[in-house]
């Protein structure tokens, strides 16, 4: 089982880790090695050009915390290069994604840092903010290659007006649809007859609903849509809320008024919840009320779903013939609605209690250099891991998304992403202190509404009560200040209205 025939050296070790990496059978070990060697050369160049100044004073050791054991091995293969470039030794520690909030918050309150740098959902910037080092106190935006980051992502991770984190993973919703269904002449004709307009990837909620309804054929084991109704309900509910708000010309997605009173029990929110529930009728019936993230995706891979309004891991996986039955039959495009919604994603920041903030900055900056970042996405892309967050990543889709390049899907994917990210209308998750609790309330009560435990009104009312409690706990005045700052940041950039 475990071969211990010889004592491995450092390189062997790194390669072993790489080869033991969970590539999900997408890529052979040899190919991966070959590729990483090629990238290694590029990366070394990038390192020298970009990070040299940042690392001038930095030395010693840096511990980087990451939310999953699965891609730690990939980063570990970077460590020797990083050390060669900067003289800093990086070690990676991981915690479960489900414990990202609590483990980090606990770590940040220790006197001594457990992680110098670590990743978190940008939603939590408000909660983590007090414990994070503003990046510009340690280095410059130029060192972070900040201009290349897609505009919406530049606006995330601000606390008290200061940048405290930078993205390493850009989650966004895109629409993945089945060409064998959407581009089938018979289907198109039937659709036109039934709904009076041409069948195409949906641009509006109505189209989304109609196409979902059209393709829902339980007797053929085919369903029109799939959304998460389990733990990640938040993202899908907020998407409905935002798109509906935009349709109505409201200030979309705003959860509080200027006195931090929740604006939840509104016709828009009730309707959004109703829409969310309505869509669940076109999902695999047994799972509709509580669709888990992995199961929903698997259902699409199995060819049971016609289209998916989902994160980019859906097209990534679905285009991979080794795990998907529909690999040759998909396309992706911007998700329905006018607004780009960017739920979750991952940022990396520097702990305030870090003993080596310079080193931590150097590590982050190294990963932000285009060559390294592209490689990071390329190598973790097989998994549902790192999604593009920089515009340069779309310059040469075939190298950034190598696994999809053969089918030509890489270009399609890059175009959809680029289109989504450059949308002038965009919604960024709330990230004020207490977001973890606000989110928790949303997740809990939207789920209750979906499962029928509560009516939409009751669920929203319960959310309101909990929101108020959280706001009181954190102090209303402080919350108002934080919320104002967040709102101003959105409005100043043309979002939200």
């Amino acid at each position, binding site marked *: 089982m475990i071969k211990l025939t010889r004592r491995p050296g450092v390189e062997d070790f790194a390669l072993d880790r790489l080869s033991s990496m969970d590539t999900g059978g997408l890529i052979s070990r040899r190919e991966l090695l070959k590729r990483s060697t090629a990238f290694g050369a590029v990366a070394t160049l990038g390192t020298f050009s970009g990070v040299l100044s940042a690392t001038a004073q930095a030395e010693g050791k840096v511990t980087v915390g990451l939310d999953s054991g699965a891609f730690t091995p990939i980063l570990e293969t970077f460590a020797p290069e990083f050390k060669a470039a900067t003289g800093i030794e990086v070690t990676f520690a991981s915690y479960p994604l489900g414990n990202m909030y609590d483990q980090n918050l606990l770590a940040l309150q220790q006197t001594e840092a457990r992680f110098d740098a670590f990743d978190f959902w940008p939603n939590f910037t408000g909660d983590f903010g*007090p414990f994070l080092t503003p990046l510009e106190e340690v280095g410059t935006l130029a060192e972070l290659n900040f201009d290349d980051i897609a505009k919406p992502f530049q606006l995330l991770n601000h606390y008290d007006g200061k940048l405290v984190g930078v993205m390493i993973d850009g989650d966004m919703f895109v629409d993945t649809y089945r060409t064998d269904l959407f581009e089938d002449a018979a289907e198109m004709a039937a659709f036109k007859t039934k709904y009076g307009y041409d069948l195409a990837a949906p641009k509006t909620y109505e189209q989304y609903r109609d196409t979902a309804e059209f393709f829902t054929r339980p007797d053929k084991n085919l369903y029109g849509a799939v959304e998460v109704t389990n733990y990640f309900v938040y993202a899908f509910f907020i998407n409905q809320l935002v798109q509906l708000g935009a349709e109505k010309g409201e200030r979309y997605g705003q959860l509080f008024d200027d006195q931090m009173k929740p604006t939840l029990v509104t016709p828009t929110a009730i309707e959004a919840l109703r829409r969310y529930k309505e869509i669940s009728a076109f999902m695999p019936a047994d799972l509709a009320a509580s669709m888990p993230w992995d*199961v929903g995706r698997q259902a699409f891979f199995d060819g049971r779903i016609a289209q998916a309004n989902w994160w980019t891991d859906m097209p990534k996986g679905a285009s991979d013939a080794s795990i998907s039955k529909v690999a040759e039959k998909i396309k992706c495009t911007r998700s329905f609605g006018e607004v780009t919604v960017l739920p979750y994603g991952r940022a990396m920041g520097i702990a305030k209690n870090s003993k080596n903030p310079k080193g931590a900055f150097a590590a982050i900056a190294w990963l932000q250099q285009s060559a390294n970042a592209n490689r990071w996405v390329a190598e973790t892309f097989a998994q549902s891991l790192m999604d593009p967050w920089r515009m340069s990543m779309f310059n040469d889709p075939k190298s950034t998304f190598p696994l999809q390049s053969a089918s030509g899907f890489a270009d399609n994917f890059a175009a959809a992403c680029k289109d989504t990210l450059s949308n002038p209308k965009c919604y960024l998750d709330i990230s004020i202190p207490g977001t973890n609790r606000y989110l928790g309330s949303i997740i809990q009560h939207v789920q209750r509404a979906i499962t029928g*435990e509560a009516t939409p009104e009751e669920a929203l009312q319960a959310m309101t009560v909990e929101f108020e409690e959280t706001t009181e*706990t954190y102090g209303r005045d402080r919350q108002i200040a934080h919320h104002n700052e967040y709102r101003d940041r959105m409005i100043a950039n043309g979002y939200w209205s």
Partner: protein
Amino acid sequence: MASPVTIRVSSRPKDSAATVRHNRAERRATLMLLGPALTFLGLLSIWPFAYLLYASFTSYQLAIPIPTEWVGLGNFRRIFASSRFWSSLSITLIFALVAVPLQIALGMGLALLLNGLSRGREIYASLFLIPMMLAPIVVGFAWNLFLNPIYGPLNALLRGMGFQPPAWAQSPDWALPTIVLVDIWQWTPFVMVVLLAGLRSIPNRIFEAARVDGSNRWQTFVHIVLPMLIPYMTVAFVLRFIDSFKVFDVVYILTKGGPGTSTQNLAYYTYDMGFGRFDFGLAGALSIVQLVLLTVGTMSILAMVRRRGRATGSELPPVKIERVAA
């Protein structure tokens, strides 16, 4: 040759010096033997409980840099006003009052089945005991895989047989039954062992006597076996009742309390308040409420058992039960 015999009955005599010395040495020895363990247990109970008690009367929020205030019974008021508390309490009670009786019924069936075997009883028993030895985490994901609605074998089998199987842990209606099912799966063997011990303790001659008296199998079971097993069933019930407050790992792995709050028991609710939201004041108060509930519940069950025993003239005997895992 015979010594003179004097019999004097004195009142309580004074201890001799040697006795006093000896008793003191004995006490010292006892103290030295028990001391380290008791000190250890004492320190590790007193510290956390002092903290817990203190936290439960304050607004302690671990994650928020705001001052902690004394709120008196405020946390307890919040608990009793919260619908989540009442629903989690009822889910905990479902475990105690539905899962446990089912375990006892099924355990009884298994025990009778095994007891009826003349050969191989031990091997079967030890195979049935496997789930009990496993980490609840492993149990949780073994079931998660087994019940997976898409690539799990059970639903594939059921679909193949023409059923429309539920999504088990992912289904709002089935999630709680699923967790209960896993609990039953894991702990029925324990009840089985207890009852098997009970069955083995019934002397064979009683069955023979019953047969001679012309009692059929069912009558023998109802009139003889069942009454004799009542102490064992009581013991199993009390232990499982206590354990039902501990159910956490399987919920954590299978449902995380969801969908909605449909599988959120007291333990998970407390965890969520404490380490999901870091509301240590509320979580502390919840812990205390739980401890009180458990203590009162266990004590009243035991009192009831004892009262019944006295009424029927059969004081619950000190039952020797056999238990492999706590």
